[in-house]
């Protein structure tokens, strides 16, 4: 070593930082098997507010695609909200409980609920706003239905079904230059490559298969949440999705009355994981505004 080893500052306690947030590592779950980060405002609000909770998107660990959840946590702290970002069992930096034979979907919901149980001890607040992003919308939705501590849900790229409005707008994609450029690229690639790529595609679909609720069941479940007073924000992108106009959600739910309780933000230029920073910044602003406006006064 060029320098002598010195005793390093190693801490699970909050750091005295110059910034608007304080972060500390937390272990969650009944056996402390879940790894997470608690992010708090540097100056604690006088009243306990709901805590925003987020976890893995697919196999990504708890920082989220492009570090989205770290940025979101720190922006929420700026407006006075605590958040917890954590890894589900066996993902990211969380351990997998030996002998746990539950299905992934069941275990995910149990993990989320275990974290909710620990919020009062961690933050002084028992209420939570859940953030579901793509596949994690499944566990956010299920946990919200089961747990009355959930007072808000933010679904990013959640459930979507084609509607008449979708079919009427479908031909518009043929005037997109970007789609034609991509089509030409894929055509060229198919000529250059063998058929092995198709096998890989099939395998990928099998890995990412999810159990979707029917639109009818989803509408009924959203109604239950709304009647309980849960605030809901849904963010959708056009990108490659089947979601092509802002109010498509209410059309496939078949219930326009939900529009007064469920807020929708639509990003016609963004892709599924918000890879452009300008789209991501806008999405995070929408979420922070929603949380601040709907939950500051509680």
């Amino acid at each position, binding site marked *: 070593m060029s320098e002598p080893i010195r005793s390093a500052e*190693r*801490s699970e306690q909050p750091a*005295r930082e110059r910034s608007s947030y304080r972060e500390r590592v937390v272990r969650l779950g009944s056996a402390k098997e879940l790894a997470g980060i608690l992010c708090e405002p540097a100056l604690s609000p006088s009243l306990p507010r709901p805590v925003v909770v987020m976890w893995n998107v697919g196999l990504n660990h708890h920082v989220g695609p492009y570090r989205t959840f770290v940025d979101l946590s720190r922006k929420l702290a700026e407006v006075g909200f605590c958040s917890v970002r954590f890894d589900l069992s066996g993902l990211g930096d969380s351990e997998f409980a030996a002998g746990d034979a539950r299905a992934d979907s069941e275990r995910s919901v149990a993990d989320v609920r275990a974290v909710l149980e620990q919020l009062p001890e961690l933050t002084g607040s028992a209420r939570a706003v859940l953030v579901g992003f793509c596949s994690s919308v499944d566990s956010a939705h299920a946990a919200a239905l089961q747990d009355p501590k959930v007072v808000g849900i933010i679904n990013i790229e959640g459930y979507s079904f084609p509607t008449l409005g979708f079919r009427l707008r479908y031909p518009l994609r043929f005037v997109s230059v970007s789609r034609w450029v991509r089509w030409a690229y894929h055509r060229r690639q198919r000529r250059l490559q063998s058929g092995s790529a198709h096998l890989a595609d099939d395998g990928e679909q099998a890995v990412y298969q999810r159990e979707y609720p029917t639109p009818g069941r989803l509408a009924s479940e959203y109604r239950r949440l709304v009647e309980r007073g849960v605030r809901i924000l849904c963010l959708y992108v056009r990108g490659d999705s089947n979601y092509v106009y802002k109010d498509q959600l209410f059309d496939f739910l078949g219930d326009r009355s939900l529009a007064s309780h469920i807020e929708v933000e639509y990003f016609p230029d963004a892709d599924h994981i918000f890879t452009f920073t300008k789209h991501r910044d806008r999405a995070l602003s929408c979420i922070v505004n929603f949380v601040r406006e709907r939950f500051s006064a509680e």
Partner: protein
Amino acid sequence: MRTFHFGEFGRRLYGAYTDPVEGRRGAPAVLLCYPGVHEYNTAHWAFRRLAASLSRAGYASLRFDYPGTGDSDGSVEDTTFASMVASLQTAARELLDLSGARKLWLVGLRLGATAAAVATLEGLEVRGLVLWDAVTSGESYLAELEERDRLRDLLFLHWAEHATKSQELLGYTLPHSVRRSISAVNLGKSLEQRAGAPKQVLFLREGREGDAAKDVELSRFWSEQGAEVSRHDLPFGGGVDRQISGNEVLLSSEAIAVIVETIGGERGR
């Protein structure tokens, strides 16, 4: 596994320390160095698996996030190549302190491998070095990321917007200061420092021709310094059209097996 923050207040780093399942007297500890910002998410799962494999083989390890990545303090503007090397040195001290080991191996992937090599050349005392697809030229690395960015924008239907982007690469802001720091990376030139040399160096390569040619120069250099140098070629992972979104997961069982075997091979020497 133990997760924690360490380092200076305001510039804390996030680390995940894994104890060996069964400790061995005199065993080295292994510092795992992630790739840079743009390839970090992709590598997280593979590094976790590598840490678990090392643990089963009897080695402590530490994974850590560079400033501005993962759960460490800072934003992407803080992730210069110099800050990567400096944080690697901080993490090395942390690992030796935690594990009680006296010997250290560095395992780096892509730009993390380059940072590991530079830290060693600057004098960080290590027993062994694994350079997994090391970046040897910052200019070439950025050109590769830019090519991947163009393809990603094509596939994600952003073709029309691609030309309007500035200071952004593969979904992350890339300020001029960070770009300059990466452009300046030249592993061949860093050899002039010659402050330190490991006893053992393993090159893992996935078939990048330019970088592989540079490995020959690096191999010769470290051989002359008395290191035992070996090389292992990995199956070609698909070139520029892989890892387009920065959101995929790298799975490399062969690389993990070779790394664990190589570090384990020094036992009894």
